[in-house]
């Protein structure tokens, strides 16, 4: 019988193991907001 794994579980298993404390770099763009966003 085929059992469907929850996506979160599957994603967890498939995810490449990352070193502890790994912080993904911020996306290169768009940049920071200097005054306010309208």
């Amino acid at each position, binding site marked *: 019988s085929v059992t469907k794994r929850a996506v979160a579980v599957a994603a967890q298993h498939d995810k490449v193991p990352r070193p502890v404390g790994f912080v993904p770099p*911020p996306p*290169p763009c*768009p940049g920071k907001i*200097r*005054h306010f966003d*309208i």
Partner: protein
Amino acid sequence: VPAAPPAPLGCDDPESEAAAAAAVNYINGHSHHGYKFALNRIEDIRVVPQGPNNEIMFLELDLLETECHILSPTPLENCTVRSFAEHAVEGDCDVKLQKVDGTLSVLASKCHSHADSSEDILKVCPDCPLLASLNNTEVLETVSAALNDYNSKATDAYLRLLEIGRAKVQYHPAHIVVAEFAVGATNCSSEDAKANVGACQLLPEDQSNFGFCTTTMVKRPSQDLQVDCQLYGHQVPAPDIPLLSQDTS
């Protein structure tokens, strides 16, 4: 093994900020109407190498209007960005630059400016007056009355209207019209103007003297008119950037 292509520039990298600063300087230097704009955000940057030490940069910029009129000699870094509650005006610009041996030059720029949506302002500040159309009858009457009032009391050159920068009309709790407008000194004194205002022309560019006025007219519950004008004094126009063209309406 060929060298890996350089990592794409981030929008907050120093190189991107330098390009954005050059672009904003160019945009303000080539604008003849309205207000100076300041950088709010680098939306995107794309670099296309053209050869050794030669690249084309495409920038998408998000700018915000400042309180300095475009003719003001005030350096941009000293110009306050218009606050959100004052009904901010945003500029979206696409700029193409070239960088050769580290020197940046703007090849083309295209900007579109628009006031923030009224809903956004009223959501945050229900009582804030909103920007009025520049050809609103009350605005035109207020600016005309303010300039006449100023000229009637001034002892120096008779001032002509160059353009209305922005205006607001408030109805509650009082009926108030607020406006900002740019002016130019003419070749007449106020006395001459009383005799023959038609002869009063803006001074030629090599003697031009522009200024900026703010006015508040209270219409209800009582009538009151306040006007304040500051002349910038003669400025030597930058060689490749003519000051406001004389035919400015």
